[in-house]
C-alpha cells in the first residue's frame, strides 16, 4: 500500500514504516519557539531538569509577538528568553528580525523532508517547502529541546486537488480562504492537508507559504505540498542543508479527497468572527473600514507588499482609514526599501511598524476601538483577536486590503488593478 508525504516523513524520522493513526516517537530536525510560548517552555525546561538543548544548531527562539516590548511584564519575559538563549547558545532572533514563520524558512532552518515543531500554531507554514511541520505547546517545546524528539500520532491525509488557474486579482489567500469556507474550521482536524494540482504549481513559493500557513484554520496538523523546481531553487537559495524531497505514492490512502476548479474564483473575505465564515467579495463590498493592515506570517512578504504598492502607487488612502504595514522580516523590509515599494506605501499613507507580528494578535501596534471594522491580511478574525472584543475583523488578500484602504470600505481589488 502506498504512503502519503506525512507517513513518509514521519516514518523516515523514526526509522520504520508507519501508517496513519500509528503513534511514534520521532527525531526532530528543528525546534522553534516565539515570545508568547517560549517563557513557559523555559520554565518547563527547568522543571524537567533539562541541562542543555539537544543541539543548539537545531533550536531557534524568536521575539516577534510583542516586539518591541510594550509593557514591563513582557520585558521581563523577553529578558528571560535572552538569558536562556545566551546560556544555551542556540539561534536567537531579537526584535525587528521578523515573524517566526518568515524567519524559519528565510534563515535556511527548514528544507524539504524535514520534521519540524514550533510552539506556535502556524508552524504548519513550512509544509509549503515539503517539510512536515506542526505547532506544539510550551511543555512539548521543552521536551523537544531536551530530547530532540517528540511523540506524534501519524495523521490521516486530506487531499485538495486544485485545478485551473487563478484569475487576475485573485491570489493564494483567496484560494485558501475559499477552501476553509468549504470544509469549515474543523473539516481537517487531526489530518494533514495535502495541496496538489495545476493551481498550486502555478503559485510562487510565497503564495504557497500563505496556503500552508492557514491549514490550521481548518484544524489540520500540517499543510503539505510536493517540492518542484521552484521549491528546490528557493530552498537552495536560503539554506546550506541538503533538501530531501518527498512525494506521495500514486496509491497512497487518503481519508478524504476534494477537487476544486479555481478559474472563476472571485476574491474572498472571511467575515467576523470565524475564519470559515467566508464570502465572495461582492457580498461584503461597501462595508466601511477604519483600519487596514498588511503583514503577518500569512501575507507580509515582499510579493504581498509589491501587490499592495502596485494598487497604491500615486494614490492616497482614504482619510478615514489607518493603514498599518508590518513587513514579515527585516530582510523583506530592506528589499522593499530598495525596490521603492515601501516608499510607495508610505506616500500612500501607510504607518510602517517593526518587522514581526504587527497588530495581528492584539499585543501592541494598532489595537482597534469599540465597534471598528478592521481588514488585515492576517489568518484569524476571532472576537478579541486584535485586542478588542468589540471590534470586527475581515480577513482578505493584500490586494483587497490595499483596495479597501483606498476606498474606505471593503472593495473589490479587480477594480483598482492597473
Amino acid at each position, binding site marked *: 500500500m502506498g504512503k502519503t508525504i506525512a507517513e513518509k516523513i514521519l516514518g523516515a524520522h523514526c526509522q520504520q514504516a508507519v501508517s496513519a493513526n500509528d503513534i511514534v516517537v520521532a527525531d526532530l530536525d528543528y525546534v522553534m519557539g516565539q515570545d*508568547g510560548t517560549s517563557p513557559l517552555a523555559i520554565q518547563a525546561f527547568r522543571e*524537567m531538569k533539562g541541562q542543555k538543548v539537544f543541539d543548539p544548531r537545531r533550536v531557534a527562539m524568536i521575539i516577534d509577538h510583542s516586539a518591541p516590548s510594550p509593557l514591563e*511584564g513582557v520585558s521581563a519575559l523577553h529578558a528571560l528568553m535572552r538569558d536562556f538563549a545566551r546560556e544555551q547558545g542556540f539561534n536567537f532572533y531579537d526584535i525587528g528580525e521578523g515573524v517566526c514563520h518568515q524567519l524559519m524558512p528565510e534563515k535556511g532552518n527548514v528544507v524539504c523532508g524535514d520534521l519540524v515543531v514550533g510552539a506556535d500554531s502556524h508552524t504548519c507554514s513550512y509544509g509549503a517547502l515539503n517539510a512536515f511541520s506542526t505547532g*506544539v505547546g510550551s*511543555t512539548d517545546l521543552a521536551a523537544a529541546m531536551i530530547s530532540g524528539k*517528540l511523540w506524534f500520532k501519524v495523521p490521516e491525509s486530506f487531499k485538495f486537488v486544485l485545478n485551473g488557474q487563478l484569475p487576475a486579482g485573485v491570489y493564494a489567500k483567496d484560494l485558501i480562504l475559499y477552501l476553509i469556507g468549504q470544509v469549515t*474550521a*474543523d473539516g481537517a*482536524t487531526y489530518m494533514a492537508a495535502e495541496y496538489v494540482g495545476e493551481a498550486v504549481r502555478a503559485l510562487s513559493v510565497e503564495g504557497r507559504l500563505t496556503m500552508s500557513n492557514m491549514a490550521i484554520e481548518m484544524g489540520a496538523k500540517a499543510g503539505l505540498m510536493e517540492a518542484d523546481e521552484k521549491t528546490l531553487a528557493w530552498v537552495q537559495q536560503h539554506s546550506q542543508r541538503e533538501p530531501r524531497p518527498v512525494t506521495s505514492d500514486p496509491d497512497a490512502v487518503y481519508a478524504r479527497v476534494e477537487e476544486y476548479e479555481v478559474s472563476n474564483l472571485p476574491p474572498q473575505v472571511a467575515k467576523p468572527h470565524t475564519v470559515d465564515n467566508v464570502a465572495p467579495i461582492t457580498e461584503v463590498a461597501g462595508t466601511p473600514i477604519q483600519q487596514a493592515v498588511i503583514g503577518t506570517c500569512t501575507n507580509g512578504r515582499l510579493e504581498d507588499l509589491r501587490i499592495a504598492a502596485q494598487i497604491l502607487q500615486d494614490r492616497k488612502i482614504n482619510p478615514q482609514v489607518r493603514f498599518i504595514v508590518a513587513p514579515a522580516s527585516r530582510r523583506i523590509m530592506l528589499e522593499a526599501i530598495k525596490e521603492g515599494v515601501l516608499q510607495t506605501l508610505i506616500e500612500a499613507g501607510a504607518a510602517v511598524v517593526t518587522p514581526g507580528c504587527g497588530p495581528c494578535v492584539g499585543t501592541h501596534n494598532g489595537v482597534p476601538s469599540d465597534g471598528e471594522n478592521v481588514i488585515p491580511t492576517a489568518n484569524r478574525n476571532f472576537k478579541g483577536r486584535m485586542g478588542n472584543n468589540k471590534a470586527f475583523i475581515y480577513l482578505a488578500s493584500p490586494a483587497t486590503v490595499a483596495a479597501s484602504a483606498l476606498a474606505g470600505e471593503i472593495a473589490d481589488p479587480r477594480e483598482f488593478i492597473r
Partner: protein
Amino acid sequence: MKFNGRVHKFGNDVNTDYIISGRYKFKTLDMKELAKHVMEDLDPDFYNKVQSGDFIVAGTNFGCGSSREQAPWAVLYAGVSVVIAKSFARLFYRNAINCGLPLVECDTDRIEPGDELEVDLAQGVINNLTRGEVLPIKPLPGVMIKILQDGGLAEHFQKYGTFNFG
C-alpha cells in the same frame, strides 16, 4: 481517576482566544492570575461561578486556534477538573494532556448547564447524576493515559529524562 462536579456549558468552536485572550497571556507566567480571565469573553463571570472540580462541557472543536498552553493551564488553575466536548482541536488536546488536564470526548447534547456529573476515566463512563443517565466516553490513547498518570509531561520527563512509553 474519578471526578465530581457541576456543568458549565459552552457551544461549538470555543477558540483559545476565548479561553484566555492574547491580551493577558503575554504579560505573565502567573497561571493563577491568568485563570481569573478564563472564558472571560464568552462569560465574564465564569471565574467567580466555577467551583473546584467543576466541568467545562462544550460542542465540537473545543480549543481551536493558537498553540498557547496558557489555555489549558488557565482552565486547570480555575479549578476545572475535566473538559468534556464532542471534539477537540489537536493542539489544545496535546497541551491539555501535557499539563495534566484530562479531556473527554462524548456526545454532549444530553448534558445541560448545572447538571451534576461523575466522570470516571478508568471505567470510561460519565454518570449524569441529575438526569440518572450513563454516557459512554471514547477512551484516550495509551500514550496520553501514561502522561496523565505521571501528572503531565514535565513530571514524565522528571521521572524518565526522555519519552518512555514502554
